């Protein structure tokens, strides 16, 4: 990519990020991937979730990650959000030490600080991102409290502002998300993710499992928030419609490797890799 030559301007920089489950041998990475049509090491049976992922993300940019299930999309964002620990690789954030510290080597406290202040995550399943025993206001409060805001009045103001932005009725702020519809739960999760104005938000299959009209509403919401707040996003989806609507640039993942990487329009109009061609042609 020509972007990689630019030294400055990036927000997130990822280099040879790799996650292997099980027992990797020296040959594991060389014997798996799209070339071999497998992510299981023939020697040890280790599973390569992602291998050698390189990319840069720029401020205000929306990067799409597509691929079939099992291609490593969710693992990628979970590694970046520190939900899981990477096997090897480097991750840099411009706002942390000017982008000179590999975040994967940071302490747990440091990682938690970054999760609370600099990152947001919206999971496919609202139960992963929300605590269903807390009210929806409480869930948003959790994120604000984690970032050190201990003023109930201000917390409630911020929570109601966010719920208003995401079109969740404010009267229902003090109910638990379990009484909400799936689309509303997802919107509460989005409110929570952006509660601290993070510069970077990860969206993992946010619209899967929602019906089409609700999908459209959630996508509209994400696009509006992105435009208004200028948040950088990494959008993971198997749905090319979502990718087309939200993203500027797209990476195509297969068996944990990037097989194609470029402007979203270009990839959808003129796919180069055989796998991408298959994905695009199977679009309903």
């Amino acid at each position, binding site marked *: 990519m020509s972007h990689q030559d630019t030294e400055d301007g990036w927000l997130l920089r990822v280099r040879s990020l790799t996650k292997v489950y099980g027992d990797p041998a020296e040959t594991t990475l060389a014997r798996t991937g799209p070339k071999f049509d497998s992510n299981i090491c023939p020697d040890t049976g280790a599973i390569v979730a992602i291998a050698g992922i390189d990319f840069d993300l720029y401020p205000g940019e929306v990067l799409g990650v597509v691929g079939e299930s099992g291609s490593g999309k969710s693992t990628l964002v979970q590694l970046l959000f520190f939900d899981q620990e990477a096997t090897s690789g480097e991750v840099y954030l411009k706002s942390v030490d000017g982008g000179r510290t590999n975040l994967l080597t940071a302490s*747990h*406290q440091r990682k*938690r600080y970054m999760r609370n202040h600099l990152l947001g995550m919206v999971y496919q399943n609202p139960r992963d991102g929300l*605590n269903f025993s*807390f*009210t929806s*206001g*409480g*869930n948003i*409060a*959790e994120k604000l*409290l*984690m970032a050190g805001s*201990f*003023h*109930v*009045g*201000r*917390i409630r103001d911020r929570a109601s502002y966010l719920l208003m932005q995401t079109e969740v009725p404010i009267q229902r702020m*003090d109910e638990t998300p379990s009484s909400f519809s799936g689309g509303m739960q997802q919107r509460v999760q989005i409110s929570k993710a952006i509660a601290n104005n993070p510069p970077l938000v990860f969206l993992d299959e946010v619209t899967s499992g929602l019906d089409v009209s609700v999908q459209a509403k959630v996508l509209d919401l994400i696009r509006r928030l992105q435009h208004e707040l200028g948040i950088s996003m990494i959008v993971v989806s198997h749905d090319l419609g979502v990718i087309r609507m939200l993203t500027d640039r797209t990476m195509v993942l297969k068996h944990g490797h990037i097989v194609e990487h470029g402007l979203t329009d270009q990839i959808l109009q003129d796919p180069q890799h055989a796998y991408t061609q298959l994905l695009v042609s199977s679009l309903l």
Partner: protein
Amino acid sequence: MIANTKFQSSYNYAFIDESTKKEVRRRALKAVCIPGYQVPYSSPEMPISRGWGTGGLHLTLSLIGKSDTFKIIDQGSDASVNACNLREFVKMMTGCRVTFDTAEATLIQTRHRVPEEIMTERQILVLQVPQPEVLRGVERYEVRTRQMHAEADYSKIWVSLYEAYVRFGTLMRGSGYPIRVNDRYVATPSPIPRWDVPNLSMANCLYLFGAGREKRIHAIPPYTKVEPLEFEDVKFRVEEFAGIRCSVSGEDRAFMDEIFDDQERRKHVINDSNFLDKVKTGQRPPQRLFNNPD
């Protein structure tokens, strides 16, 4: 004939064997060194069931010496069945002097109350703790609560306070209000009423907390800062007994029990029995009283 001096009695002094006492003392010392941190300990078998004050008894019996004066209170009362039985037990096993007088005692074991009377530097208060993990209500896995303590990640307990405020309009907690000890660990003060919580901060005496069933000891050393968790705009408050006087002594400014007499009339009585005895005779021992904000 050589007289048998070693096995004169069937029990060791203070019931517990010396090596176990040593272990409990070392854990207690560690707890004092890291205020508010829960130190695991062996929690040996006792002749009472776990969860009935074994943790308190372990600490008491490991610390008590022949010159100590022992007092035990159960929810403020010297006379409850539990207090009487444990007092008899400690007396039988140590031959120590026992007392009802808070000022006279050097070692006080208590359940769910801190005495009203200000304690001094020569006194130790041992509290019985049913659940030492303050985060258990919001996180059921021990491995996670330990990590949360290690990283000082207390957001979940803060959310539970936020939720209490949203639901009840006040930082509602019946007992065991969460405290931050020495600007670091959040801990439980054991199920004492909110009334007693301010007395834990910058106290003259040592507070030791023993949880026998859960096998944990934590401590608040003398002159240690203890703050109840509170928001910038919603403050911690103690129980208010506005306009209420003790029906026995006529006094106020003490933690009151609400009782109903045979005619079903509502009455209040000072909860701390030794304090009540003293105010009945006309003397009022020194107290530290907390004034609710605004």
